[in-house]
C-alpha cells in the first residue's frame, strides 16, 4: 500500500475529489505552502504536508478531511 510521504510518514489529509469549490481558504492558512490551486484543480504537495489540519478546519464547505488511518494514493 502506498502512502503519501509526509513528516509523520503517513499523510492523513485528503481533499475529497469533485467537491472542492477552489476558494483558496486552505491555501491561505497552510503554513507549509503545501497546497497547489489552479483555476479548477487542487492538490496537496505530499512532501510538504505535515498533517497539521488547519486546512481541514478552514474549509467552508467541508471537503478537506482528516483520516487518522492515513490516505492511500
Amino acid at each position, binding site marked *: 500500500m502506498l502512502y503519501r510521504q509526509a513528516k509523520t510518514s503517513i499523510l492523513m489529509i485528503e481533499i475529497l475529489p469533485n467537491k472542492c469549490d477552489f476558494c483558496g481558504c486552505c491555501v*491561505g*492558512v497552510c503554513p507549509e505552502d503545501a497546497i497547489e*490551486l*489552479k*483555476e479548477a484543480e487542487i492538490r496537496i504537495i505530499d512532501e510538504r504536508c505535515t498533517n497539521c489540519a*488547519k486546512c481541514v*478546519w*478552514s474549509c*467552508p464547505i467541508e471537503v478537506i478531511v482528516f483520516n487518522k488511518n492515513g490516505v492511500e494514493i
Partner: protein
Amino acid sequence: MKKEYDIIVVGAGPAGSMAARFAAEQGISVLMLEKDRDVGYPVRCGEAVNKKGIEEFIESNEKWIAAKINKFSLNSPDGTEVVIEFQETGYILERRIFDYELAKTASNAGAEILTRAYVNGLLFENGKVSGVKYEFNGGQKEIRAKIVIAADGVESRVGRWAGLETHCDFRDMECCAQVTASNVKVNSDTCYFYFGKDFAPNGYFWIFPKGENIANIGLGVSGLTGKKKSASTFLNSFMESRYPNASILTKIAGGVPCSPTLKKISSPGIMLVGDAAHQVNPLSGGGITSGMIGGSIAGRIAGEAIKMNKLEHIFAYDKVWHDRIGKKHEIYNIIKNGIYNFTDEKFNNIAHSFNKVPRNKRTLGKLFTTALINNPSLLIDVAKVFVI
C-alpha cells in the same frame, strides 16, 4: 507580448488592476496575469462598498451597481433589530462586471492582460525577484520583469516564494459560504447583519440586497469555529429556516484574511497588494476599496522606481500604506478581537441600550460607544493601541 516587462502583476482582481493601471499610467510596460479564464468571475465576496471609496478610482456606473444602500439593520441574537440610517451611500456591486471594468481601466492605461495564465514560480537574480514562471496553454513559460506585484488573493503564494511570511493564522481566516438567492424579501436599500453563536460565531452573517427580492446572503466564521461547524452548515440551516422558498442562483465558498496587514509587503523585486498583503479591513472583512488603495499605491511607487531606475524605492511602499490605512486596520483588529469574543447576552444588551438612542442620532460611532459602555474592557484594548 514582450519578452520582458518593467512590471508583472499576478492576479486581476481590484488590487491587481489598480496596481497595473497606476504603473502603466506612467508610461512603463506592464503585464497582468490572471489564472482564471474570466476577470471578475467567480465572485467570492459580499460585494458591499462605500460609494466615496470607489469613486476615488472609477466613476459610478449603473451597470455594476446592483443596489444603493443607506441603512444598516443590525440584528442581535434575541432578534432585536437596530437600524442605522446614514447619509453616505453604499453600493452593492455586481462584481463580475465591476472587476472587468477595472481591468479595462488598466488596459486603457496601457497594461497588457493575459488570462488562463497560472503563475507557479518566481525567477531570481542575485537574490532579487526577476520574473515569473507560469503555465499557459499547456506549456511551462518564463517571463522576466524588474518588479513583480503579487495580487494573488487569499492564497498569497507568490509572496511566500519570495521569502515573505504571508500565510494567515487559521483563527484570523474568515471562512465564508454564500449564495445569491432570488425570491427573498429584502428592502433594496438596507444591508442586514446578524450576530451571535447561532448565526456566525466569531464572524457575522450578512444579507445584502441586489435589487428587489434578490440578495447576496452569506456568512464568515473563523477557522476556529470551522473546527466544529463549517460556514456552509450555518448557511444551509439559515436558508432552510428563513427562506425555504428561495431559488439559489449561485453558491460559492470563499476566504478572507482578517488580520492586520502583513509585517513586510515588499522585498527586493516584489510588492504585495490586496488580500495577498492582508490589506482587508479586519473588522468588516471588506477588502475591495482598501485593496484598490493598496494596489494604486504599489503601482504608483513601482512606476516611480522604474522611471528613477532605483528599484530599492519600492521599499517606501510599506510605510506609505501603513500611514494611510495599515495603522487604522491595526485598531480595527483590536476591536474585532474584542467583539468576536462577545457572548450572545452582550450583543443583546448592546442592541437594547442602543435602541434607546433617538433614531436620528444613531450612527456607527454611537453604536461603538454603546458597545464600550456595555463592555468597558474593550476600551482598554483599544487604548492599548495608542499607548504601545
